[in-house]
């Protein structure tokens, strides 16, 4: 491969990774935007999502890569997989908020954040206990279709990832911009007390943010499985940390920022792996994060928050 086609290939890979990180980063940013809480449970909601997706696809009759579907059957199975996974992880996120975080809502300091780390470990250990430590073969019903452009290869699964990510991000943008509850989410993020005094029930807004963020993490989990063809109890950490970095890079609390940050992190990972070395990927990612935060502390699209009195 020439350097140019290598570059193109890594841009393609980077966009796929980036789409996945973006889906995951949105969950951090939605919750942070409203509660100013970094939800570390999100790492492993994503990990649980990979398992829910795996079990759902297996429940639909797939096993490993042996069943290949085409046309409407393929689309139906994938759509069902995404739908079930997103609903289950969405409900899991709402449950975490309702039963673990809400009782801590008025506790000042880092208690809630520390608790999310605890919840993350609980999810991690529950999966470890019931599934075991080994990698699981993730079912993939997609045919091995490949498209060549200028020496680079795009696989069908990558097209799928882009389509899913774009559809979900457009849906989220529409939801946040144009629905009543979406407007209430934005208002609450900008001034929670004033939003309350407009009659917004802030608990509902918070639950909505957790549902949406966790559902997107579930979608990200299924994307992860379809992309890598495996999952295990440990996949939440690397992906979660990179997605969290993406959210901070884009400007945490900022929805377009999370999307941009995800794509940027994906591209950095792919290009860094190719041209610096795969084992250096995280070094490159976090060095860039540090540099961005030194020169733009609010992130790429973030605003410097005005002091709330």
């Amino acid at each position, binding site marked *: 491969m020439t350097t140019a086609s290598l570059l193109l290939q890594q841009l393609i890979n980077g966009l796929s990774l980036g789409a996945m990180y973006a889906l995951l980063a949105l969950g951090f940013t939605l919750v942070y935007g409203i509660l100013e809480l970094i939800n570390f449970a999100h790492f492993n909601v994503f990990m649980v999502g990979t398992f829910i997706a795996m079990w759902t696809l297996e429940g639909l009759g797939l096993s490993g890569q042996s069943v290949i579907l085409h046309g409407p059957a393929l689309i139906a199975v994938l759509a069902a997989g995404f739908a079930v996974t997103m609903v289950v992880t969405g409900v899991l996120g709402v449950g975490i908020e309702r039963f673990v975080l809400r009782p801590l809502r008025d506790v000042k300091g880092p208690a809630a954040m520390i608790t999310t780390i605890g919840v993350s470990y609980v999810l991690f250990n529950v999966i470890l206990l019931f599934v075991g430590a080994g990698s699981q073969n993730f079912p993939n019903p997609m045919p091995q279709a490949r498209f060549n452009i200028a020496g680079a290869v795009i696989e069908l699964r990558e097209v799928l990832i882009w389509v899913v990510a774009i559809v979900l991000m457009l849906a989220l943008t529409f939801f946040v911009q144009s629905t009543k509850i979406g407007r209430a989410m*934005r208002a609450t993020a900008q001034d929670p007390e004033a*939003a309350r005094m*407009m009659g917004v029930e802030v608990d509902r807004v918070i639950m909505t943010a957790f549902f949406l963020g966790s559902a997107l993490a579930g979608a990200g989990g299924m994307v992860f499985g379809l992309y890598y063809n495996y999952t295990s109890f440990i996949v939440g950490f690397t992906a979660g940390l990179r997605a969290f970095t993406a959210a901070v890079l884009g400007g945490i609390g900022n929805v377009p920022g999370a999307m941009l940050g995800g794509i940027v992190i994906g591209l950095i990972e792919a290009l860094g792996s190719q041209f610096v070395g795969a084992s250096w990927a995280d070094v490159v990612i976090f060095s860039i994060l540090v540099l961005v935060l030194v020169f733009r502390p609010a992130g790429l699209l973030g605003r410097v928050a005005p002091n709330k009195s």
Partner: protein
Amino acid sequence: MPEANGPLLEFEAVNTFYGDLHVLKDVCYIIGRGEIVSLLGGNACGKSTTMKTIMGIVRPASGAVRFDGVEIQQLSTAERVRRGIAPVLEARRLFPRMTVFENLEMGAYIHKRGPEFEADVERVYARFPRVKERRNQLAGTLSGGEQQMVAIGRALMARPRMICMDEPSMGLSPLYVEQVFEIIQQINADGISIFMVEQNASMALQIAHRAYVLQTGRVVLSGTAKELRDNPAIREAYLGELQVPAPA
């Protein structure tokens, strides 16, 4: 409608705390239907806490808050808004990164979207042509006076029976102050009661029907606006600089 002739809002021996800090001490207020009532007092005397107690942002430790004859001190903020109390907050507190129109939509949050909503928007636009001009602009980019128009419009969108205003003249140019007080009177003439916290005592006492004076959390004086205007202690404490020397 319970007690159609009783007061619209009533505080009965309300005590409110922030942690250990006793902010409101046995406070009693009455806001009658159709009245403009002003609350005067210096800094940190409990004026904003009064507003927060009305809106349900803080709950009183004891005492009763009645709206339209019903005790509301245990109700959620949203429920109070639905019953007809709308706020115009200190320093406007618009949603800065939402458009002016979206801010109006937030004001109507408790109502269903429909022809009535459209009519409400048109009424706000008719009252505030500037708000109409700026409707697609982000609220944070407006001048202070324009923001105050939007804040009042936003409160009207809730179709309130009473508007609680926290320092409506704060940070506005004298021209806008004049305008805001005129608008308050117009709104009141439409049958909406006004409870207004205000530093600008001389202006407040010009438009209010009655007023209360709050000092370190206690009501120390109350009466009709005229009585307070004529009270030497008030003239000295609150109207001092604005007093016109009597002709010799």
